[in-house]
């Protein structure tokens, strides 16, 4: 491929790029070519989807949903961009597809790469679609100037400390805070700044102590009076207090602290881990994705929903997904209509989940591999046991056996009924289901 100029990008099963920790999507443009005239070996990247993030320019092949092309998603790290050329307005450009040119240079990477290729090349982004080129350029500038990748590199110690290993706890310069993880990150930043100022403070105190001692030694010629010692010890106390506070702060943010005997801290960590596990770092927003909003939201939702789906046994209520998804998105809430639209777009993409509407109107998300047959077999086993033959089963009986929510169990029962497996009995005792015996009854009937 483009040698060291391009790095490959992993994609999720629904065709979304896998982002780096803290990487946030800024803008999307469709039908984009990425060209580089300086490099003869540069691959042909035609009419793909270009995603600008805080860290990279990611180019996805046009039909990124098909698995055969997943390998050709590539990225240019923003850190290698050395110059972005401003858009020249010329007569010629009016007839051309709008294009953005930028210079990428290779920083010295000693030992790893003795390639004698050019040190810097000019790449061109050709926007063939209707995307707003100027807005994209603006965001490109912003992201590049924001240097989000640098702030990450400057705080590697934090990343090591962070017990979850997720690397969320890094300072983000110009990066917009979004999602639950965004809030957590903000919190973290606050902690860090407090930590830093405390550190500075006691460094100052140390310095003060040293200067004090020097001062006493030099000026008074070791004739230090007891009162002065009191001042000194007070300073030391303050230092110790500050140190203690700092430790506490660290342990509060750090899940690897030895002081796990503190229950409150433990539960707090748990809570944090849990929140992080559902947190979406870079939610697709209308602002970043523009016209591609629903399409990208659809893909992100497909990725997101897999874990809750597994936990719920392969089928989950759309309302539950709405709550979970919005909780994960934190502040960037979506409307129910957006969710529904994103779900209905799944039909067009090769994603492992699907939207299903029951006859009752209840909508759920289920794995494509989810089979009703399997559920029916279990329901059948349930209704044919001697007790159930006599008294039938209720939705809550089925819910207990199937390990799912009663509302969902009822949907399954109703589906089984519509397939002719069950029949219903509505009485003062409630709404119960029986195995459908009617076809068998009729066979030995005299009068039809």
């Amino acid at each position, binding site marked *: 491929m483009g040698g060291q100029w391009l790095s490959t990008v992993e994609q999720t099963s629904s065709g979304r790029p896998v982002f780096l920790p803290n990487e946030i999507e800024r803008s999307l443009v469709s039908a984009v070519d990425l060209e580089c005239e300086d490099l003869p070996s540069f691959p042909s990247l035609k009419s793909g989807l270009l995603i600008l993030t805080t860290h990279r320019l990611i180019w996805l092949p046009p039909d990124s949903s098909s698995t055969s092309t997943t390998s050709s998603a590539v990225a240019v790290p923003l850190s290698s961009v050395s110059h972005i050329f401003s858009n020249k307005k010329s007569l010629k450009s009016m007839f051309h597809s709008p294009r953005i040119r930028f210079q990428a240079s290779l920083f010295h990477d000693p030992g790893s790469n003795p390639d004698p290729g050019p040190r810097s090349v000019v790449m061109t982004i050709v926007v063939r679609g209707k995307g707003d080129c100027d807005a994209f350029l603006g965001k490109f500038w912003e992201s590049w100037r924001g240097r989000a990748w640098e702030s990450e590199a400057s705080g590697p110690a934090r990343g090591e400390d962070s017990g979850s290993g997720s690397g969320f706890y890094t300072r983000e310069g110009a990066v917009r805070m979004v999602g639950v993880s965004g809030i957590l990150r903000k919190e973290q930043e606050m902690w860090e700044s407090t930590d830093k100022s405390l550190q500075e403070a006691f460094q100052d105190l140390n310095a003060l102590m040293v200067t004090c001692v020097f001062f006493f030694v030099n000026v008074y010629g070791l004739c230090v009076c007891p009162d002065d010692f009191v001042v000194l010890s007070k300073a030391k106390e303050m230092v110790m207090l500050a140190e203690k506070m700092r430790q506490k702060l660290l342990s509060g943010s750090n899940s690897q602290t030895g002081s796990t005997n503190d229950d409150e801290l433990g539960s707090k960590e748990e809570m944090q881990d849990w929140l992080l596990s559902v947190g979406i770092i870079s939610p697709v927003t209308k602002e970043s994705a523009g016209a591609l909003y629903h399409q990208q939201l659809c893909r992100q939702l497909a990725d997101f929903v897999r874990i809750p789906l597994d936990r719920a046994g392969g089928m989950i209520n759309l309302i539950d997904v709405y709550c979970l998804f919005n909780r994960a998105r934190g502040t960037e809430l979506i409307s129910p209509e957006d969710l529904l639209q994103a779900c209905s777009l799944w039909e067009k993409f090769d994603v492992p989940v699907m939207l299903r509407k029951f006859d009752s109107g209840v909508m759920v998300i289920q794995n494509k591999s989810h089979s009703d047959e399997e559920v029916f077999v279990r329901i059948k086993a349930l209704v044919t046991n001697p007790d159930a033959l006599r008294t039938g089963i209720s939705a809550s009986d089925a819910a207990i056996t199937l390990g799912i929510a009663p509302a969902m169990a009822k949907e399954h029962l109703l589906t089984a009924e519509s397939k*002719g497996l069950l029949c*219903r*009995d509505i*009485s003062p005792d409630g709404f119960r289901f*029986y195995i459908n*015996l*009617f076809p068998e009854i009729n066979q030995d*009937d*005299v*009068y039809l």
Partner: protein
Amino acid sequence: MASPAAAGPSLLPTTDILTTTNTSPNTDAFVYPPQYSFPPFYTLQPNLTTRASQLSSWSGLILAYAAHANPRLYRLTPAHSIFTNTALRRTLAPTDARLVLAHMVEHGRAAWTDPTAATKARKAGAGSDGGGGEVWLYWRTPEEWAQQLGSWVEATGQRNTVLTLYELLEGDATSREEFHGLPVEVAKSAVAVLVRRGRAQMLGEGDGVGVKFF
């Protein structure tokens, strides 16, 4: 005799499955079919395939019951006690019972006692409490009755004789026949079958209707 083509497979109803119960009616209690004690039997099933089976089951139960009852049951309303199972504490709602009756009418196992009212009620919607809910039960279809009448006339040598309907249905001569006690309305539809086949002729009007068999 003179009508070999019209002679049925049997002159006596001895081969019929229900004959044994009919010749010695009601000495033993009616054995309800299994569906009678199946709770979902009393809830109208939304699944159309299942519902069709359910309605047929009802039809079977009603006809078996009607043929077995003492006195035999010839007409039925949606509010009849057959639709209630006190042991199970279940009742088929009258609106649903009316669907059962409509199903039976559709399959030639019943006829509305007042067809115009039935049509009106169907057009009006679910309201079944009004007229039109009552049916004649055909636990023997008019064709079967017609055959029995024909066979009896043949066996007793009364062809080409004019018999009044009252004679046929209430007379001492027919007291051992299954059609004894048949309502006039049902008997008329049976005779109508014979008339269509050219084996009988209706004479007169009103109560004194006479029938001449050929």
